[in-house]
C-alpha cells in the first residue's frame, strides 16, 4: 500500500477529461439520433413485412447484438476501407459503427413496443376513418413511444457508456483522456476515480432527465 492520493496533476490536465466527456456525449447523441431513425424505420417495416424482409432485419439485429462492439469498431475502421473505396476519420468511423449498433438495439425496443400497442386502438383508428399513414403517426407511434420510454432510457445510457470503446481507435473521448493522463502522469488511481465519477454523474443526469420526460408523457395520457 502506501499510495498517497494527489489530484493536482489531474486538475492540471482536466481539459483532456472535460473535452473527452463532451466528445463522448457528442458521439453518443449523433449515433443515437441515427440509431433511432434506423430503429424506427426497420421496426415499422418489420411488423408489417413479409417473411423475407423479417428474416433480413432479424439477421442484422442478431448479428450486431451478438458480436463484441470492439470487433465491430475495428471492422468498420480497419476492415471496411480495405474492401470498399471509402476513407473516414476515426470519429466518423466510430459514429457509423455506433449508429449501426444502436440501430440494432433500438429495432428490438421499438418492435416489442409496436407489438404491445393494443389492437383495439388500431381498430378504433380505422373506425373513425384514419388512413393507414395517420394511424401509424397518430395512434401507433405515440402509444409505442410511451410504452418503450423506460427501455429507451436504459438503452441510451448504455450507448453513452459504449462510446468508451472509441478510445481503441484513438478517438479522444473521455476514456482516451483517462488513458492519456494515466500514461503521462501515472496518477492512475486518481484519474480513474475522477473518470468513474464523471461517467456516473453524466449517466445519472441523463437518467434523471429521461425520467422527467417519461413522467411528462405519462401525464399526457
Amino acid at each position, binding site marked *: *500500500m*502506501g*499510495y498517497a492520493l494527489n489530484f493536482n496533476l489531474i486538475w492540471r490536465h482536466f481539459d483532456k477529461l472535460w473535452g473527452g466527456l463532451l466528445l463522448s456525449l457528442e458521439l453518443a447523441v449523433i449515433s443515437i439520433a441515427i440509431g433511432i431513425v434506423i430503429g424506427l424505420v426497420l421496426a415499422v417495416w418489420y411488423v408489417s413485412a413479409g417473411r423475407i424482409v423479417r428474416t433480413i432485419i432479424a439477421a442484422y439485429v*442478431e*448479428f450486431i*447484438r*451478438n*458480436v*463484441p*462492439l*470492439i*470487433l*465491430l469498431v*475495428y*471492422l468498420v475502421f*480497419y*476492415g*471496411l476501407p*480495405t*474492401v470498399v473505396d471509402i476513407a473516414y476519420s476515426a470519429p466518423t468511423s466510430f459514429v457509423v459503427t455506433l449508429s449501426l449498433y444502436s440501430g440494432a438495439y433500438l429495432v428490438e425496443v421499438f418492435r416489442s413496443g409496436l407489438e404491445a400497442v393494443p389492437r383495439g386502438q388500431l381498430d378504433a383508428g380505422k373506425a373513425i376513418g384514419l388512413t393507414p399513414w395517420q394511424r401509424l403517426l397518430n395512434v401507433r407511434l405515440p402509444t409505442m413511444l410511451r410504452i418503450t420510454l423506460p427501455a429507451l432510457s436504459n438503452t441510451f445510457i448504455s450507448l453513452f*457508456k*459504449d*462510446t*468508451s*470503446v472509441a*478510445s*481503441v481507435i484513438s478517438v479522444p473521448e473521455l*476514456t482516451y483522456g*483517462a*488513458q492519456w493522463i*494515466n500514461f503521462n502522469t*501515472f496518477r*492512475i*488511481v486518481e484519474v*480513474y476515480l475522477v*473518470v*468513474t465519477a464523471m*461517467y*456516473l454523474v453524466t*449517466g*445519472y443526469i441523463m437518467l434523471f432527465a429521461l425520467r422527467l420526460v417519461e413522467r411528462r408523457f405519462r401525464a399526457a395520457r
Partner: protein
Amino acid sequence: MLIQIAYALPFLAQGFALTLWVSLLVVVFSLIAGVIMGVGLVYGPVPLQWAVRIFSDTIRGIPILVLIFFVYYGLPAVGLHLPSFWAAVLALTLFKTAQVVEYLRGAVGSIPRGQSEAAMAIGLTFRQRLAYVIFPQAFRRFLPPWINGVTDAVKGSALVSLLGITDLMQAINQVIGRTYEAMPLYVLGALIYFAVNYALSLASRRLERRFSFIRE
C-alpha cells in the same frame, strides 16, 4: 489469401480457447459472488443493502473498459501485483457480478410475498425458506436472463485484448498484423463470436418459453 488464413487457424483457435476460458471463469466467479451479494441486497441488514446497492450501481454506471483499465493499472499502483490475465478476469467478474445481483433481485422480487409468509407460518427457518420455497421458484425467473447475460461476458472478454492478452480478438489483430487481410479475418472473428453468443441467446429464449407456464 485463404492459405494465409488457414495457416493462422490453429493460432486463432488458441485465442478462441482463451476467450472461452476467460468467459467461463468470469461466469462461475460472478455467479457465486453475485448470488451471495444479491441475497445480501434482498434480505441483509440495511447497511449491507446499501453497500451492495452502491457497488452494483457504480459498476453498472461506468463502461466496462474503464473498469478494466482501473483494475489493470490501478492494482499495481496500490501494491497489488496480479498477472494481467487475472486482473482482466477480476475486472470482468466485478462487472458480471453487478449484473447477477440485479438478475437475482429481480427473480426473488417476482416471488409473491405470500410464499415467504406461508413458509414462515409453517415454521421454516430462513435457510429452509430460501432453499425449499424461494430459490426453486426464483430459479426459473433467474435462468433465462442469466444465460442471455453470459453473452455479455463473452463480448466483454474481447476487451481484454487491450491488456495484451491473446484472446480471440487479439489473435485476430495479430494475424492481421502479419497478413494484412483485415476484412476476411474480422468477418471470421465476428462469425465465431456470433456463433457462441447466438447459441446462448437461443438457449435463453427457449428456456424462457419453457418456463412461461408459470404464473403468479
